[in-house]
C-alpha cells in the first residue's frame, strides 16, 4: 500500500474526506477538484474509500424493486368506493 503524501501543496486525507463523501460523481475539473484528483492518485486509502462509497450507492440503486402487484389498483378503487358508500350512509343519518 502506498504511503500518504503530506507535501505542503497536497491536500491531506482529512481535507478531502468530506468532499469525497459529498460528491461521488463530481467532474474533477476545477482547481480544488484537480488537487483532490492529485491526492487520489497518490493515496490508496482515499481511492479505496471513494470506490467503496460509489459501490455502496450502486448496490442500492441495483437492488431490484418487485413488480407492481397485479390487483393493487383494483383493490385501491374498491377501498375508495367502500369509503364513499360509508360516508353517504352517514350523511343520510
Amino acid at each position, binding site marked *: 500500500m502506498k504511503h500518504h503524501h503530506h507535501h505542503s501543496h497536497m491536500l491531506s*486525507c482529512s481535507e478531502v474526506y468530506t468532499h469525497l*463523501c459529498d460528491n461521488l460523481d463530481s467532474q474533477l475539473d476545477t482547481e480544488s477538484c484537480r488537487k483532490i484528483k492529485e491526492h487520489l492518485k497518490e493515496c490508496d*486509502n482515499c481511492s479505496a474509500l471513494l470506490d*467503496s462509497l460509489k459501490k*455502496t450507492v450502486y*448496490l442500492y440503486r441495483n437492488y431490484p424493486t*418487485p413488480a407492481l402487484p397485479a390487483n393493487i*389498483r383494483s383493490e385501491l378503487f374498491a377501498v*375508495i368506493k367502500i369509503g364513499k358508500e360509508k360516508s353517504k350512509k352517514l350523511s343520510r343519518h
Partner: protein
Amino acid sequence: MKELSDIDHQLIAKIKAGDERAFSTLVQHYEQTVWGFAFKLCRDKEKAEESYQDTFINVYRKIDQFDGRSKFSTWLYSIVAHNCMMKHRKRKLDSLLESLDDAPDGDDPQTQKQLASWNDTPIEKLMNGELKEQLNHAIQQLPDDYKMVFVLRDLEGRTAEETAKITKLSVSAVKSRLRRSRIFLRQQLHEFMTP
C-alpha cells in the same frame, strides 16, 4: 418521473371537481413512482402495498390541499414518505452518525482494516439473497430522516432542494444526512465486500 404538463394540471382540476376517471388516470401515471419509492423506504412488499393504498387515498381525499405552488411530485413524495415512516419504528443513531463527520485516521491499524479495498467481483453476480439481506439490514438501521434523504437523493435522483422540501429539512441538513448515510451504509457493508 415525468412531471405533469399543463394539460395534466387540468387533470387535477377535474379531480378536484369530483371526476373519477381523471383520478384513475392520475393513479396510472404515478403508481410506478409511488410503488418504487414506497418499496425502497419500507424494504418490505406488504408495507409498500399498504403505503401505495394509503398514499392514493390521501391524494383522493386531500387533493384540494394541493395548491400547485410546488411540483405535484414533491407533494406526492412527501405523502409517501409520511405513510412509510408511520409504519417504521423510529430509531436513534444520531450521535453515532454525527461521529462519521470526522475523517478516519489512516495510520490506525483498526482503521486500515476499514479502508481495505472492496473486491472486484461484478456487483450483478453479488446480488444474491445474502447481500440483499445485508443491504436491507443496513438501511433499516438508519433513522427515518436519514433513510428518506438517502433514498430521495441517491436512488430517486431528486435534487437537494426538492429533498429538503419533501423532508422539511434545510438543504444543509439534507447534505450532511446524505454524507453520513453513505458512510454509515458503506461501513455496514464493508465486511461483506472485502475479500
